């Protein structure tokens, strides 16, 4: 079934990401195969699928880390922006176009304090250059003050105000996840890409996370693109779901539709979505199985390390 059929209302809404038939290959292996999808303003769109389905590859393509061989991606980062091409742009440019992201394997700056981590994000928009910094000119100081206060706001938002001066490396896992989100928000994006934000967090943290995501979406009017294995979380927060399997898009629609979708169920180890959810939740080793069966995981992992990209 197609997006138009399921989402007659959304067709009028402003498109943030417009992905058309992108294909991404590593050598012989096809990581993303002819995928098209639209993401609309102010929605929470979740991308699900077994490990190695190409979710993270999709993220990396959207943020310019990978360059798909075929297809086009256009982006209207903040509301009112005119759509621009994404493919071929540098990562930081895309970020400036209003796209922020977090990483599957947390990638903070461990040796900076939580506050500094967020400030790095906030300050990428700022002007003051090295000279004014060396001389401590007034406008540079003003910017410093602004970025600090902004950073504190965001830390408060994600509930890390008290840990502001801890080193990011010394924070607890869940806190690091939230700090990463705060850093992303710091770049004042129009859309934020969350890559498995709930991975390795406990149920309580998961609930808080769900609230946080809704908050970001509703209060800050930021569109959210979400990769997540935790079905409970996905079902609870996502407006719309997109299902990838072996690099191609197998389903798209509202949560309840997706849960009934046979293709999806098939994709999930041939069992029903709920069971799949249950299993994946209760027995993490299923991840491992999936990993071993999928030859693309290694690629994605490799793709996620800085070593591999040639900027």
């Amino acid at each position: 079934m197609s997006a138009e059929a399921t989402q007659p209302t959304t067709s009028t809404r402003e498109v943030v990401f417009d992905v058309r038939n992108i294909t991404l290959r590593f050598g012989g292996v096809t990581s993303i195969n002819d995928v098209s999808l639209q993401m609309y303003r102010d929605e929470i769109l979740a991308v699900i699928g077994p490990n190695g389905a190409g979710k993270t590859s999709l993220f990396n393509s959207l943020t310019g880390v990978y360059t798909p061989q075929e297809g086009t991606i256009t982006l209207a980062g903040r509301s009112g922006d005119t759509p621009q091409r994404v493919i071929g742009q540098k990562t930081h440019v895309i970020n400036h176009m209003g796209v922020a992201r977090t990483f599957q394997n947390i990638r903070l700056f461990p040796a900076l304090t939580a506050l500094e981590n967020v400030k790095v994000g906030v300050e990428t928009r700022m002007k003051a250059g090295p000279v004014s910094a060396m001389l401590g000119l007034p406008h540079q100081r003003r910017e410093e003050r602004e970025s600090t206060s902004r950073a504190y706001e965001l830390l408060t938002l994600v509930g890390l105000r008290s840990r502001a001066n801890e080193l990011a490396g010394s924070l607890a896992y869940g806190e690091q996840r939230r700090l990463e989100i705060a850093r992303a928000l710091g770049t004042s994006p129009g859309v934020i890409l969350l890559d498995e934000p709930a991975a390795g967090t406990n149920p309580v943290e998961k609930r808080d996370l769900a609230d946080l995501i809704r908050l970001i979406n509703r209060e800050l009017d930021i569109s959210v693109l979400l990769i997540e294995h935790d079905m409970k979380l996905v079902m609870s927060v996502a407006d719309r779901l997109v299902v990838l399997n072996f690099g191609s898009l197998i389903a798209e629609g509202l949560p309840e539709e997706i849960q009934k979708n046979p293709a999806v169920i098939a994709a999930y180890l041939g069992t029903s979505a709920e069971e799949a959810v249950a299993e994946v939740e209760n027995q993490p080793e299923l991840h491992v199985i999936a990993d071993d069966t999928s030859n693309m995981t290694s690629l994605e992992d490799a793709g996620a390390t800085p070593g591999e990209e040639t900027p």
Partner: protein
Amino acid sequence: MSASIQRRPGERLRDNPLVGRALGCLALSFVLALMIGKQEGTQQDFGLAFREAILGPRIVWFLLIGVLVFLLLTFGPRVQPYVHRPGIRPLAIGGLTVVVAFSLLKWTDSTVVSDGKFSTLSEAASKTGQLAPLARTFFTPPLPWVLFVVAFAVAAAAIVLRKAALSWVGVALSVLVGLWAWYSHSLVVSLLGTPDHSTGALVALLGFLAIAAACAATALSAEESANTRGFVNRIFAWRPGMPLVAVALVLGVMAFAIATWFSPSNQNATLVDTASLFSSTGLAPLAKAYLSWLGYLLFVLSLALAAFAAYRRDPRLAWGAAVLGLVSLVLNLVALYSISALGAKSAFDGANGPWDNLGTGGWLASAAFLLLAGAGYVVATAGRERGTIARTQSDVLAGIGKIPGMSKALILLVVAGALFYPPMATPFWQKVLVSEIGIYVLLAIGLNVVVGWAGLLDLGFIAFYAIGSYTTAYFVGALPIQPPEWMRLSPLLCIPIAIVVCLIAGVSLGYPTLRLRGDYLAIVTLGFGEIIRIVAVNNPGNFTNGPKGAFGIPTPAIHLGPIHIDWGQSSLQYWYLLLVITGLVILAFNRLEQSRLGRAWAAIREDEIAAQATGVNTRNVKLLAFAIGASTSGVAGVFFASQIGYINPDNFVLNNSILVVAYVVFGGMGSLPGAMAGAAVLTWLPEFLKDQVPAEDRQMWIGAVILLMMIFRPAGLVPARRRTAELHGFDDASSAETSAVPAGEGMGGTK
């Protein structure tokens, strides 16, 4: 070496850690025997030295050393709990220092005493009739060692038994012995009457003071701070500024009681003598007053005021102390100037005019006054809150800054040293300070931006230094190709030009190459450095004058209306010029590190992809790092050229680039004080070793020192807060297995 032993249960004998360690220690002693052996063999008998080093009885001694080390390593842990006791470390250090002073260092430069070592001196002194009995007794051979052993034993006992009374005895004893040594030595010096630059007595005094401090530590340390650091912290937390006052007290006493103030040929006049020397001359009344009574009064007053203010934690009083200290400092300098100036006029033999022939006294006093003023300032700014004592790891990471005024105090001490040590130093050390230490510190600061902050490994850094130097040489007209008349500049005016040129050079090297990852960048920069040097050698278009180099680069000079300053051959003037520039650079870079750029650098160093995803324009940020580093090194180049007056391509060999990197890492990558300390220590060391080991062996010893440093303290002398964190994080992360891959330094490298 014990670090290299892993305890793995249930393995063959060969892998038994103890056996491994024993073998390691023996190997160590073997190498030591080679290192301390005689100089090299000959063309006829290649490897003669090798045989002589390891054959013959001497090897036995070295093997014994090895066994000793082995025992130490094996049974060292048993005494671990004691090592945590407050004062153990200062005690060990103090003991070591005294032994060094008594056995290694020179106690006099006079040619009368053959090698000037302590033993020979004491031999001679104990026999000399005209020496004051007090000194003579001190020098009677076994006595000094006995005194030392006793003091040491008392201190040790006090610490182990934790007896307050005993420790106070220890304090008194060691302070007395120390001062006695110093005093006797000064008597000997004045007897010999020759200029004396020996260090023994001073170092010995330091050692004894360290021992005293150890005792004091035990006496004062309560249970909740059961280690030296805790003790130090408590002292600072107790009354900010008080430690400074204490130091000032010691310096002041030395200055006003013992040290020489005025010393033309054949006399070393203490303050009293100086006063009498000049009593009859037409010395300015103020200076006269200062010599006779004002000086003492001012010292006592400002000392008392500062101490009281510190005790009461009273800002108003503290400001008063600060002002008083500064005023006295000025008066002191005035007095110094007038006596030295007048000394030259009224024919004292060998008195050469203003600021010359001044002994240590005046400068020690200046330092004391500066510290008192500083103490006042610290107290005034520290506020009333009690400092917190570093307990948790993150406290330590956050550093001693948590203790109010401690960092300020340290900075003040360094400043006082930088200002008032050089005039006390011998011409040799003054020259070393200027032409080696000062310049390389500047270079290290520059490279620290590239390597330490941005995490880019640059092995061709000296190239920019060369560019700076040759730019200067060109604009002062020391090269075959002359600039047009109107462009001829004084070296100082070359600084901005050199900065610009190096900026351009840095960017044009960086632009194409900065996309390369760590080690590729390293080799490319290395190549760039070599290319610059070879171009200078091959002299295309006769621009660089090839291997002959550029001669006759003038010394800088300022002529602004009434002001005429000419930095001739005087090292001191250069030192202060260098000090000003370096100070400015430090301030600027310190701000830079705290600015968004500094954070961006840390970000790309830590995780380039994440940084990009966070919107950091990595290429520009890297380019900035490169350019800023390059221009700093350009400034250093200007100084070098104008100070030496002659440059040739040999000054810019690859080895120097490597050395600068070594300085930065040795000192502590990414920390400004670290980089400076590293450069200072490693440029000071070879000059120091000149008197200790054969000249040919110095590089060998330096290599060994660098190696040991990296083995035992990989983070460097003064680890950077951010780096320490990294390192710490990795220690947690890396188990024995995974540690096969080194902790990614984030030089664009992998984690």
